[in-house]
C-alpha cells in the first residue's frame, strides 16, 4: 500500500491573499491619487469585497489585476459620492505602467531603485521634491524657498521626476 499524498493545499487563503497583495493595492490606489488614509480605507474595502467570493488564487498576476480592478471601481465610487470629478485619463495606460514598474513584487524593487536614484539627483531638485512630498508644501512655498518662480519650481520638479523615472527604469531593466 502506498503512502498518503504530499500536502496539496491550494485554493483560497484569505490571510495569504491579504499579505501578498495589500501593499500592491495600496500603492495602486495612491497612484490613482488617494491620500494615505483613503488608500487604507479603500484597500480594506477591496479585500472585503473579494473575500465575499472565494476564488482560486492560482496566478499572482491575475489576482493582482483582479484586485486592482476592484480597487479602481471603489475609488471611482468614492469619488462620485464625494461629488468629485476625477479624470483618470487613461486607466489602461496607468494599469500597464503600474504593472511595468511594480513588477512581481508590488514595487519593492522600484522603491529600492528610487532610493538609489535620489542620491544621484541634484541638491536643489532633491530639496524641491522633499518639500513637496515630505513637507507637503505648496508650489508657491517651494518656489519662494528656492527663490524661483512658481513655473520654475514646477519645471524643476518635473525634470527631476523625469530623471528619476529614467534612472529607475534603467535599474529595473
Amino acid at each position, binding site marked *: 500500500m502506498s503512502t498518503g499524498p504530499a500536502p496539496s493545499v*491550494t485554493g483560497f487563503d484569505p*490571510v495569504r491573499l491579504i499579505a501578498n497583495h*495589500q501593499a500592491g493595492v495600496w*500603492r495602486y490606489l495612491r497612484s490613482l491619487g488617494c491620500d494615505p488614509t483613503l488608500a487604507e480605507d479603500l484597500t480594506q474595502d477591496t479585500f472585503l469585497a473579494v473575500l465575499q467570493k472565494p476564488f482560486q488564487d492560482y496566478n499572482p498576476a491575475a489576482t493582482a489585476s483582479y484586485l486592482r480592478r476592484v480597487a479602481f471601481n471603489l475609488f471611482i465610487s468614492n469619488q462620485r459620492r464625494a461629488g468629485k470629478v476625477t479624470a483618470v485619463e487613461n486607466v489602461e495606460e496607468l494599469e500597464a505602467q503600474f504593472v511595468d514598474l511594480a513588477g512581481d513584487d508590488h514595487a519593492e524593487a522600484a522603491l529600492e531603485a528610487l*532610493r538609489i536614484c535620489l542620491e544621484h539627483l541634484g541638491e536643489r531638485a532633491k530639496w524641491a521634491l522633499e518639500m513637496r512630498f515630505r513637507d507637503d508644501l505648496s508650489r508657491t512655498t517651494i518656489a519662494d524657498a528656492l527663490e524661483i518662480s512658481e513655473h520654475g519650481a514646477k519645471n524643476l520638479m518635473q525634470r527631476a521626476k523625469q530623471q528619476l523615472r529614467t534612472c529607475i527604469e534603467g535599474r529595473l531593466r
Partner: protein
Amino acid sequence: MDRDDPILDALLGEVLGGHTPPDLTARILQAWAAQGSNPANLDPRLQQALQGAPMPPPLATEPTWLEPVAPPVQPPAYVNGHALTPPLPELAHAETTPVVTLKAKREKVVGRSTRRRSSSWRGVTAIAGSLLAIGTLAGYLVWQGQFGEHEPVAVGPTTKPDSKVEVVPPKVVPNGTPTKGPKPARDIAAHEDRTDSNLPRFGAEVSPKYVAADPPSAWKDAVASTDHEVIGFINQSLAASWSANSVKPSPAATDAEWCRRAYLRLIGRIPTVDELSLFTGDKSPDKRVALVDRLLFDKAYAAEFNNFWATQWSNTLIGRSGMQDKDGLVNSEGLQQYLHAAVAANKPYNKVVYELISATGSNKPGEADFNGATNFLLASQNDKSTLATARTTRVFLGQQLQCAQCHDHPFNKSTQHQFWAMNSFFRQMKVERDRRTGVAKLINTDFTGESGSANEAEVFYERRNGQMKVAYPQFAGIELPKTGDISEIDRRQELARMIAASDDVSRAAVNRIWAHFLGYGFTRPVDDMGEHNAASQPELLERLAKEFKAHNYDTKSLLRWIALSEPFGLSSKIEAFNVADAPQMGTVPLFSHYYTRQMQAEELYESLVAAAQIAKTGGTPEEQYKARLAWLGQFTQSLKTDEGDEASTFNGTIPQSLMMMNGELTQQAISSEHSHLLKRVAESQMKPQEKVEHLFLAAVARKPQKRELDIANQLIAAHDGQVNAALPDIWWALLNSNEFILDH
C-alpha cells in the same frame, strides 16, 4: 498639484514622505468577521465594485449533481494568530443565516415561526410549538456542546496557533470497520479479477465498417483490490493528508448519527424509529458493514434504492427541470424506466454511459422501438447539438467544455477546436417527433457536412478574430474518418465507445459519488476536472478511479467503499484542531469531519413520508412518482440556457419555508388521519415522555434534551394535559427544525 507621473508620485510619497503601506491584515479580518457571512450584508458599493472586475475562476459555483447547498462564507474566529473581535461563539454547523448571537438566533427562529392558527387557543399552541422548535435547536446545540462548554477560539494577536499537532494514527471506526469476513451476497460478482482485456468492448459487434481504437489508459491491466484494501487506502490516504495539513479528525459519529446518515446517502431517506432502534440496539462489531450491505443488496430496500439512484441519475443527466418539462422532447417515465432498470441490474457504469450516448429509438414506453436511454440526448437537443456536446463532456468526463464553444477556454486547456471536434460526433443525430402522440424518436442519419459533402462532413466554426475553421470528429487524440455517411461510420456510437473506455469516465464518476457522500468532491465543482483545477487528494482520486474501473464499474462497490470509510463515519462537530478544515469558507476540503448540509429536495420528501409514515395511497407507482415530481417542481425552474442550467429555490428560501410550514405534505405528516406514526404513538400505551421521545427519534434520531422535554411539557400543559392533542404541534415543530432538514 501636477499628476504628470502619478505612480512615481506615490513612490516618492513613500520614500520621502514616509507614507508606507500599512499592514491591514488584522483590520480586514476583523471587519470581515463583523460583516458576517451573509452576502446581503455586503455594502452595495462593494457589490458594485465587483461588477466588471475580471474575476479569477471562482470556487464552487453552479450546483452539481449531488453537491449540498453551500452555506454562506463564514469568517473564522482567528486566522494565523490574527484575532478577530468579537470571538464567534460557534463555528460548528452550517447555517443558512448569518452568524449572530444566540439571542438573535432565537429571535430569527421565532420570526420564522409566526404561523397562526385559526382559533385563539391554537395561537397559544403555535407559539408554544415555536418555542419547542427553538428549544430543539437549542437542545441540539447543547448536545453538540456549543455553549457553556465551548472555549473561545479567538486568541490575541501575539499568540500563535499551536503548531505542534501530534500525528494521530489512522482511527479504527468502531462498529463498522470492515474485516476480512465473509463476502456479502451480491447481485453481480464484482470481485472477479478484471483486466483491461476482459472489459467489454461496446458496440464492436454492431458497428458499421469503421471501429475506432480505444483511448490510452493509465491503468492497463489493473487488478481489482479487495474491498478491505480499498477502504484501508481511503483511510490511510486521508490520515496522511490530515497529518500533512496539521489537522486532526473529529471523533467518530454516534451510531444514531451514522445510521441516519447512511440511510440518507444510500437510499435517500432517514431511518424509521424501528430501523434506528434495530441498528443502535445491535451490539455486533460489524453492524455498520451489515447495514450498508442490507441497504445495498437486501430486497427489502431494493425499490427505494433503485428509485433513489435512478432519480440521482436523472437529476445529473437532464436536471430536475428536464424531468418536468411538459413541452420538451423528454418522456420522464421512459427515462425513469431505463435508469431504474439499470440501477436494479447494477449495470456497469460505463455500459450505461455507452448506452446513453449511443441511444437510438423512441422515448416513450410502449413503442415498438422504445429505448428510454434516448431521453438523455432528447433533453439536450438544440441548434447544432451544442447542448448535447457540453452535457456529455460535463456529465461523463467531468470537463466543462461549454465555454470553448465560442473561444479558447480562459483557464483550462480546452480549445474551440476541441469543442467543435466533439460536437461533430453528434451531427448524425436527428429527431423525429409526432406532435399528435408526443412520441419523439432519435435516429442517426447521413451528415453531409456544412459544405454539403458526405465524404468531407466537416463542421465550421468561427474564431474570435472572424476566421473560419473546420473541425472533424476527434476524441482523446484519436481522429475519425471525415465521412459522415452513416453506413460507413456511426460517429455517436464510436464516441460512446471511446468515452466508455476512457479513464476520465471513472474519475468523473468517483468524484461525483464522493461528493454525494462527503459533501464535497475532490475538485470544485465536481464536473470541472483538469490541470487547471487540481484535485485536493489526487492520489486518492486516482486510486479509487482505477479500482472502480478494475471492478468493472460496479457502482455498488464504490458506494460500499465510501460508506464504510473512516471519513464518512466522523462526527460533523468541528473541533479546535480541525477548524481550518472549512470548505464552506473556500479552503480545500480535508474531510476531517462530516460536512453538514441540507437534504436534497427528494430526500426531504421521502424523509417526511418515511418519518410520518404517510401512506402512499391513491395511485400506481407512476402516479405517485408524478405526485412527487409535482411537489419537487415548485422549487426548480429551467433557465433555458445553452448549458441547460436550472435555478432552485430549495436553498433556505421563503418558498421552501412556507412549504415546510404550511404545505400539503406537512399537513398530512401532522395529521393522525394520514400519518401512521402519529396515530400509532397516540394510541400506544407509552407514557407522555416516551411519546415525545418517540417523535424525536423519528425526526432527528435522538432523544430530547431536558430543556426540550420541559418545553414539550409546557405544550402539553397548554392542551390541558392532553398529550395526544399536543403531539401534532410537537411533531410540526420537529419537522420544521433545522436539525430535521440537515444531514449531519
